[in-house]
């Protein structure tokens, strides 16, 4: 049984490691093999970008060598896939090599699509790549006061990032002693300040307490110098615009016709690509109506690893993914909270505490154990 995992990020790595442990005997005897193809020999801890953007983490702290995170029995290659031939059970990669499989798992992630919003790349700051986060930090350092607007595109990965960056900006400006010279204005695409109602109920009074103004039902349409326009017909003037642009899945997914916007139609419990029983999808690449978050990829990967292993040994899957998501929320002022929910149970976040912030800070390091499938 040849298992091919495309993508060496959060989902692909946890899946590969869990599978390698569950199928130790099959791998040893040669009855099964696991190959991972990725686009980079480095693994980035993406939540670190938030801290890089406000000067609280050095970019080099966000990376590990991908090979160092993988069980030795996994064959790893930096050879990004350029063509998916699902009817023939193979993919073609950049090197020109064709890789055959019995089961394929696609976990190529998602990325910002700034070009979809005219003017955004030119005028706005972003923090979803290392280069953008460093650029944003330099811009912040040169900023001496004025109106700062936060604007958010749909869809985007990490649903907490818009709120987190807002509260982290408050801390940043306070620490620089210029908070009294800053007017912070938060905008959000739907009719409340966060998609999770209990989180919005906590965040909105926090905004009011801190003097942050906000506008809801604001979907970025176009960015001009010093003003951002919404699809809804309003506009917000700014001196500094901080954005989370709308995201897309990887271009290769869209080009292969696997899913609109690069997101693959996926069964919400078994995680197979709709209409295919040997193609699975994990993490940001699915079209599932759940958070695009590392924790989503993590919990999906755990369920899928059990299913692939049990399909090998007893011929059938044993577990459904229950929609579990867990997200920390940095609340500023040295505090944090979290939201946990699944398909059945809504989140019930508690008031932020210093203890949860310390745990999140520790998790920034523990992530590597998590990627190894040990946490």
């Amino acid at each position: 049984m040849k298992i091919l995992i495309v993508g060496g990020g959060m989902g692909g790595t946890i899946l590969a490691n869990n599978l390698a442990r569950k199928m130790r005997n099959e791998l040893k005897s040669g009855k099964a093999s696991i190959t991972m193809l990725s686009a980079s020999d480095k693994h980035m801890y993406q939540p670190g970008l938030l801290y890089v953007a406000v000067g609280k983490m050095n970019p080099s702290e966000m990376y590990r060598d991908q090979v160092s995170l993988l069980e030795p029995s996994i064959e790893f290659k930096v050879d990004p896939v350029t063509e998916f031939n699902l009817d023939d059970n193979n993919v073609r990669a950049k090197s020109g090599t064709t890789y055959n499989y019995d089961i394929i798992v696609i976990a190529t992630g998602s990325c910002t699509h700034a070009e979809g919003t005219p003017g955004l790349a030119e005028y706005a700051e972003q923090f979803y790549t290392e280069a953008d986060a460093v650029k944003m930090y330099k811009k912040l350092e040169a900023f001496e006061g004025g109106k700062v607007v936060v604007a958010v595109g749909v869809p985007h990965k990490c649903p907490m990032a818009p709120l987190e960056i807002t509260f982290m900006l408050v801390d940043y400006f306070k620490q620089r002693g210029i908070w009294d010279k800053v007017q912070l204005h938060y905008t959000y695409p739907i009719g409340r300040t966060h998609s999770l109602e209990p989180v919005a109920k906590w965040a909105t009074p926090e905004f009011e307490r801190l003097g942050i103004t906000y506008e809801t039902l604001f979907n970025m349409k176009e960015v001009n110098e010093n003003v951002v326009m919404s699809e809804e017909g309003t506009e917000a003037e700014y001196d500094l615009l901080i954005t989370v642009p709308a995201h897309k899945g990887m271009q290769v997914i869209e080009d292969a016709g696997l899913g609109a916007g690069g997101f693959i139609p996926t069964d919400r419990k078994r995680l197979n690509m709709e209409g295919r029983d040997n193609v699975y999808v994990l993490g940001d690449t699915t079209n599932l109506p759940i958070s695009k978050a590392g924790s989503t990829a993590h919990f999906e990967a755990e369920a899928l690893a059990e299913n692939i292993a049990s399909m090998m040994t007893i011929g059938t899957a044993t577990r459904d993914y229950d929609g579990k998501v867990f997200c920390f929320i940095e609340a500023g002022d040295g505090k944090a909270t979290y939201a946990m929910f699944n398909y059945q149970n809504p989140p019930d976040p508690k008031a932020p505490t210093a203890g949860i912030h310390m745990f999140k800070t520790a998790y920034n390091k523990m992530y590597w154990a998590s990627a190894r499938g040990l946490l």
Partner: protein
Amino acid sequence: MADRKIVDAKNTFCPGPLMELIANMKQAEVGDELAVLSTDEGSANDIPEWINKMGHEVIESSEDSGVWSIVVKKTK
């Protein structure tokens, strides 16, 4: 009849039915109809509110056994 795409946002909390609709609207063509399925009672208000603000059209809104179905049309 125009294409009617189902946006199944039942039993999901984040990003939620309206955000799912906004994302799907971007991929839709003018004239397309989208049916959002939601188990969140709030959708019956916040989806029409956004649709009206945007100048799109709500075709129908109904509820059956706790599932709201809101059909909208992209008009521009």
